[in-house]
């Protein structure tokens, strides 16, 4: 109560004047606009035609087209206009779009399998990391574990290691185990990286749940595991969800392991996107389309996570 009282008087002294606020606001908005421009440029490039995308001077106003997205999802072959004229009329709007460029759709591109890989590896590793992380975090939070601080440091330090250095022995090990370029291999690897974040974050969340709740449940005759399931987990749901999103974002964005340890079967989106090529180099509208589709979930998650972002990037140390 007294804290609230001092705060309300504090504002009269400490709060900035309207002019200072307007000045600060102006600068921040300027920075925000500059920082978001590159992203908007990519989103716009996805709707440009090939020639608009590489026009000089760079085009801000252009006629939007879905060619970039069509090119992203298809493999096309160039044909002579005569050949195309002899074909039966196009069945779909995208057939029509492609034929305007003297091309014929030859089949689907690899983007969907890569996207599916990203989803499977992302969700698989997130589920495992959060499951293992919740158990370990609960134990670290509630029980006296010998050398707990050292173990926690060990767990975190594994995440700090340079991925390229880690990839060298993993590459050799996976070759022996036939795990190279498999989803299982990538899931295990990402789980190992994510579990350290999960333990640290979840320990913070579980530390915040008062022990009294569980102790009351234990007195009522619940076993430890029942108390964990019925009392602790429901209270930790928000924390678990936030942790899961952080793990998912890591797996979704990860590039170093993916590019060094996968080549086809298990390749995820990040190593795939830069190699979307058209005739003569990178097909920028298609690359931009892939980037847009890839980034949209991240933007949504960022907004969802906004309140917990600080915790996530400091391994739970800084809370508010």
């Amino acid at each position, binding site marked *: 109560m007294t804290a609230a009282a001092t705060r309300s008087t504090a504002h009269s002294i400490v709060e900035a004047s309207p002019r200072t606020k307007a000045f*600060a*606001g102006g600068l921040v908005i300027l920075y925000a606009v500059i920082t978001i421009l590159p*992203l908007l440029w*990519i989103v716009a490039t996805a709707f440009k035609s090939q020639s608009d995308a590489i026009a000089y001077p760079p085009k801000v106003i252009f006629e939007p087209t879905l060619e970039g997205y069509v090119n992203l999802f298809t493999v096309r072959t160039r044909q002579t206009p005569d050949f195309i004229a002899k074909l039966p009329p196009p069945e779909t709007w995208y057939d029509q779009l492609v034929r305007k460029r003297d091309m014929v759709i030859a089949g689907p591109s690899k983007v969907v399998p890569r996207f599916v890989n990203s989803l499977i590896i992302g969700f698989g590793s997130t589920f495992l990391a959060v*499951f293992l992380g919740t158990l370990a975090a609960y134990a670290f939070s509630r029980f006296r574990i010998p050398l707990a601080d050292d173990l926690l440091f060990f767990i*975190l330090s594994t995440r700090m290691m340079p991925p390229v250095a880690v990839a060298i022995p993993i590459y050799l090990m996976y070759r022996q185990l036939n795990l190279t370029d498999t989803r299982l291999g990538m899931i295990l690897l990402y789980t190992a990286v994510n*579990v350290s974040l999960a333990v640290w974050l979840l320990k913070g969340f579980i530390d915040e749940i008062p022990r009294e709740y569980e102790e009351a449940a234990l007195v009522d005759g619940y076993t430890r595991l029942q108390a964990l399931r019925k009392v602790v987990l429901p209270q930790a749901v928000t924390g678990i969800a936030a942790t899961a999103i952080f793990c998912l974002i890591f797996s979704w964005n990860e590039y170093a392991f993916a590019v060094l340890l996968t080549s086809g079967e298990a390749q995820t989106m990040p190593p795939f996107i830069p190699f979307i090529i058209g005739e003569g180099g990178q097909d920028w509208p298609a690359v931009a389309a892939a980037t847009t589709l890839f980034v949209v979930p991240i933007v949504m998650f960022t907004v969802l996570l906004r309140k917990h972002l600080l915790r996530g990037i400091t391994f739970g140390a800084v809370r508010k």
Partner: protein
Amino acid sequence: MTTISQPDHATMPGVSTPVKSRAARRVRGLSDRTIAWLFVAPTIALLLAINIFPLIWMIRLSFTNLNLSMSYLPLRFVGLDNFRDILTDEDVWFRLQTTAQFVISSVALQVVVGFGLALLINRQFRGHSFWTTIILLPMMLSPAVVGNFWTLLLQPQIGPFNYLISLFTGVPPSSFSMTGQVSLAPWTIVLVDTWMWAPYVMLICLAGLRSIPDYIYEAAEVDRASAWRQFWSITLPMTVPFLMLAVLFRAIENFKMFDMVNLLTSGGPGSTTELVSISLKRAAFEKWRTGYSSALAIILFVTVFGAANIYVKTLNKVKQR
């Protein structure tokens, strides 16, 4: 995993009758020590299998001449030769120097931009929350995807970046190349890294600023301390632990930087932006000099491990606040 969930089910009788005698609980429930052990073991086991076992294997390999592109050669133990080669190799020192320059300039720039933004946002103007979220977006993106799309933005002829620069300065847009020029490329990776990570420093500094109680400023007002004085004797010292946290983490991350730079410049032009991780990748996955690169990897491990130690100590210090 089943070993953990089974006792749970076994001890889950009718949910509606949780009241049991203490003796029954002791018999049917697992002891706390067993649970603690069961809960921590899978995580430790996974980390041992995926991190520690390969690490030990790598230590062994670092004493060998293993080269995967010439695996017909007999495996020979060469003692500390790889380490000696690395530490006496001028190229390696040059890469380390490139990396140090990148780490120092990018982190310094991020601190200036991030701390500045945090001070401004802390003024709590209207809509600050919305604009903060916008500013935070870059750091959530995939560094590889960021590196890739910045190559489009930085194209000399068709990219909007050069075009904007030429609008403001009059320099012809195709007269310079941010990623292809020896004098500019090292600054380009700093620029893009700052675009991505200044928000990170900002977010942590903001937490630091908000942790300073108002009454300290009130006392300063009473003592008629100038705004300048307040900044130097209250704001800055009280934010420093948070700033340290951000600086350490960014320094570690940038020391091992691979993804963004690999796609933006792939170490070029020449080797002007070839950071240690990129050079390690070339040695290990292009030249397949596994023994040599294992030794280099171990040197990196030890460095990062030391830095991580300091980082965790700072974490714990900040946590006590």
